[in-house]
C-alpha cells in the first residue's frame, strides 16, 4: 500500500493536531455570535491507497470536543469521499427540514482532470473540510447521531450496514410522503426565498463563466509572454552595450510569467470551487423548499378532506394535527436555517471576493517589484561599471 501522494512526496504522518494549533486555525473562522465552541473538526492529511480492486484517497478527520454526546475528548479517523457522501444522505434523510451543506462533485466531468493530482486532492480536501465545519456550526445538525458516528467510528462500514437494518426495524418515518398534493398558496417568505435562490444561482453561474473566461484569456496571454521574453534575450546576444539591459528585460518578463501562472492557479484552485459549491448549495436548498411545499400541501389536503366531511363535532383528527405540527416545524427550521445561511453566505463571499482581489494585488506587486528592480540596471552608464 502506498502511503504517499501521487507525485512521490511522502505524506506528513505527524500526530493529530494539538488543541492549540487547531484552535489557531479555527480562530480564522468567524465566531458564532460569541457562542463558546465545544466541537472542532478538521479534515487533512490525504493519503492514497492502492488496493487490488481500486485506488482511492482517504482523509484524516480529527475531532476535539467537550460535548457529553462524545465518549472521548479527541478522535482521529480516516474517511474517504463515499463516507462523506453517505453522511450527507443520512443527514438529508434524518433532518429533512434543514439545509444540508453541499459536497464537492463526486465525478469530475470537465476535461482530463487527474483525480490523484496534488491540486485536485487539495481542492477536494478543502471542500470536505468546509462541509464538516458547516455541519459542526449548525445547532441541530451537529448533534445528529450519524454525524457523531462519522466522526468517531473506527469501522464506519459496519455501522453503515447496521444502520440500514436499524432503519427498517425502527421504522423511522423520515421519508416524507411526496405524494402529488397540490399546494394552494405558498407563504410569501418562502416564495421570496425560492425566487432569490433562482436568481442567486443564475448570477453565480455567470460569475463562474466569467472567471473561467478570464483564466483562459490569462493563459493565452501567458503563452505569448513566454515567447516575448526570450526574444529580448536573443537581441541581447547581438549587442554589446545593450546586452545587459536587454537580458534584464527578458528576465523581468520571465518573472511576470511566473507571477501570472501563480495567479491563474490560485483562481482555479481557490475561487472556482467555492462558487460551484454555492451553486450546489442552492440546488439542494431548492429541493428542501419543494419538500416543505409538499408537507404543507399534504396538510392542506387532509384539512380540506376533514372540512368536507362536515361532522357534528369538528374534532381535528390526530393525523391532521400531526401534519400541522410538521408544517410548523418545517417552516421554523427552514427560516432559522435560511437566516444562518444568509449570514454565512455573506461572510463566505466577502472572504472569497476579498481573496480574489488580494491575489490580483499580489500578482501586480510581484510584477511591479520585477520592473522596478531593473530600472537601475537600464540606467547604468558603462563608465560606472
Amino acid at each position: 500500500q502506498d502511503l504517499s501522494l501521487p507525485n512521490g512526496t511522502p505524506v506528513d504522518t505527524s500526530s493529530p493536531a494539538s488543541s492549540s494549533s487547531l484552535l489557531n486555525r479555527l480562530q480564522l473562522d468567524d465566531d458564532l455570535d460569541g457562542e463558546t465552541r465545544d466541537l472542532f473538526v478538521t479534515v487533512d492529511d490525504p493519503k492514497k491507497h492502492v488496493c487490488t480492486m481500486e485506488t482511492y484517497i482517504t482523509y484524516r478527520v480529527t475531532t476535539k470536543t467537550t460535548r457529553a454526546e462524545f465518549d472521548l475528548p479527541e478522535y482521529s479517523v480516516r474517511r474517504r469521499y463515499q463516507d462523506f457522501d453517505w453522511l450527507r444522505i443520512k443527514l438529508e434523510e434524518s433532518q429533512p427540514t434543514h439545509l444540508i451543506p453541499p459536497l464537492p462533485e463526486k465525478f469530475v466531468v470537465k476535461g482530463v482532470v487527474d483525480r490523484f493530482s496534488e491540486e485536485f486532492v487539495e481542492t477536494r480536501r478543502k471542500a470536505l473540510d468546509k462541509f464538516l465545519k458547516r455541519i459542526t456550526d449548525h445547532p441541530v445538525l451537529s448533534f445528529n447521531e450519524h454525524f457523531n458516528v462519522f466522526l468517531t467510528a473506527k469501522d464506519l462500514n459496519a455501522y453503515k450496514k447496521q444502520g440500514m437494518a436499524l432503519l427498517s426495524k425502527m421504522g423511522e418515518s423520515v421519508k416524507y410522503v411526496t405524494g402529488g398534493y397540490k399546494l394552494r398558496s405558498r407563504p410569501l417568505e418562502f416564495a421570496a426565498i425560492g425566487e432569490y435562490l433562482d436568481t442567486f444561482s443564475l448570477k453565480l453561474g455567470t460569475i463562474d463563466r466569467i472567471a473561467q473566461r478570464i483564466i483562459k484569456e490569462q493563459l493565452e496571454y501567458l503563452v505569448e509572454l513566454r515567447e516575448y521574453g526570450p526574444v529580448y534575450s536573443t537581441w541581447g546576444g547581438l549587442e554589446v552595450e545593450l546586452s545587459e539591459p536587454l537580458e534584464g528585460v527578458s528576465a523581468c518578463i520571465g518573472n511576470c510569467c511566473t507571477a501570472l501562472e501563480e495567479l491563474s492557479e490560485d483562481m482555479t484552485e481557490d475561487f472556482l470551487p467555492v462558487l460551484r459549491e454555492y451553486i450546489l448549495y442552492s440546488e439542494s436548498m431548492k429541493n428542501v423548499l419543494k419538500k416543505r411545499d409538499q408537507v404543507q400541501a399534504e396538510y392542506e389536503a387532509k384539512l380540506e378532506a376533514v372540512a368536507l366531511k362536515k361532522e357534528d363535532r369538528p374534532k381535528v383528527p390526530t393525523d391532521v394535527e400531526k401534519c400541522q405540527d410538521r408544517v410548523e416545524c418545517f417552516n421554523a427550521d427552514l427560516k432559522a436555517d435560511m437566516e444562518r445561511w444568509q449570514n454565512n453566505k455573506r461572510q463566505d463571499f466577502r472572504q472569497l471576493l476579498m481573496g480574489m482581489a488580494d491575489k490580483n494585488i499580489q500578482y501586480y506587486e510581484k510584477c511591479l517589484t520585477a520592473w522596478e528592480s531593473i530600472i537601475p540596471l537600464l540606467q547604468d552608464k558603462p563608465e560606472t561599471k
Partner: protein
Amino acid sequence: MEDCLAKKMEITVSEAEKRTGRNAMNMQETYTAYLIETRAVESQSEGQCVPVDSLWRRYSEFELLRNYLSVTYPHIVVPPLPEKRADFVWHKLSADNMDPDFVERRRIGLENFLLRVASHPVLCQDKIFYSFLTQEGGWKEVVNETGFQLKADSRLKALNATFRVKNPDKRFTELKHYSDELQSVISHLLRVRARVADRLYGVYKVHGNYGRVFSEWSAIEKEMGDGLQSAGHHMDVYAASIDDILEEEEHYADQLKEYLFYAEALRAVCRKHELMQYDLEMAAQDLTSKKQQCEELATGTVRTFSLKGMTSKLFGQETPEQREAKIKVLEEQIQEGEEQLKSKNLEGRDFVKSAWADIERFKEQKNHDLKEALINYAVMQISMCKKGIQVWTNAKECFSKM
C-alpha cells in the same frame, strides 16, 4: 555639432490634413499633407516674437528627400522614414492609412525624421534639405535638377556585387550580418508584442463583465448589495484602463520600428562599400588582363587562352601594323586604367573612413536611444502595475464592506 541645423532652427511637423487632388494619371486621389513649421532660434531677446515659417508637404515628398540624401551621401547612415503602411498591428489598431491614430503617429515619425537629419553633422548642411524645409514651391524640380537619380546604383548591380565581391572590408561584412540579424530580431519582437497586446486587451475587457453581473446580483441582496455594486464599478474602471495603456505602448513600438528601418539604412552603406569594392576589383582585374594582352602582343607569346588568340591562330596572324596599333590602344587604356584604379582606391579608402566614422556615431546614438526606449517601457509597465494595484485595492475595500 555646433553647426548643425537643429541648434539654429526649431522644426516641427505640427499638423496633418486630408487633401484631395489629381495624381499623375489625372485620377482623383486622397492623401494626407503635413505642415512643417520652422522658426529661427536666435538669441531670445525680451519679448521678441520670432515669426514662424510654414509649408505643407506630403509623404511622397519626404520619400523623395530621403532618396536624394541616400544617393548623395552613400557613406552616411541616413535616418529612416516612418512606415508607409501600418504594419505589426494588433487587432484593435487600424491598418488604414487614413486612420487618425495612424496619421498622428506618422506625423510624429516625420517630425522625428526631420530632427534626425537636422542634427546630423553632415546631412544638416545639405541645401536641398534646407529648401525642403523652407521653399514652398518648385522644390521637386530643384531636387530632380540635381540629377541624383542618375547617380543611384541599380539594385541588380548591387546584388551582383554582393555575391561576387572577393575582398570586402571585414568590418562591413560583420556589420551587414549584424544589420540582418537586428532586422530579424526586431521584426520578431514587434510581431510578438502585437500578439501580447491583443491578449492583454482580452484579459482586461472580460473583467468588465464582472461589473454588470455584480450590479445585477446586488439587486437581490440586502447587506451585500452596496459592496458588490461599488466593486463592480471598479471592475469597469479596470476594463477601461487598458485602452490608454496600450496606446502608450504604441510609442514604444514606434521607437523599435525606427531602428528596424535604421537596420536597412546600415545595410545600404555596407552594400555601397561592396559595390565600390567590387568595382575596384573589376577595374584591377581588367587592368591586369589588359597588361597581359599587351605583353602577349608585344612578345608574341600566348600565355593565356583567349578567343582572339585562337581565332588569330586559326585565321592567320595580323599584320605588324595592326599589332602596333593594338598595342598603342592598349597602352593608352592601361594608363587610363591605372589612373582610374588609383582614384578608385582613394575613393574606396575615403569611403571606408568616412562611412566608419558615421557608423560609430550611429552606434552611440542607437545605444543611447534604445536604452531610453527600454527605460520608458519599464516605466510604462510600472505605471500599469500601480494602476492594477490601485483598482484591486479599491475593489477589495468594497468587498470588505459586504
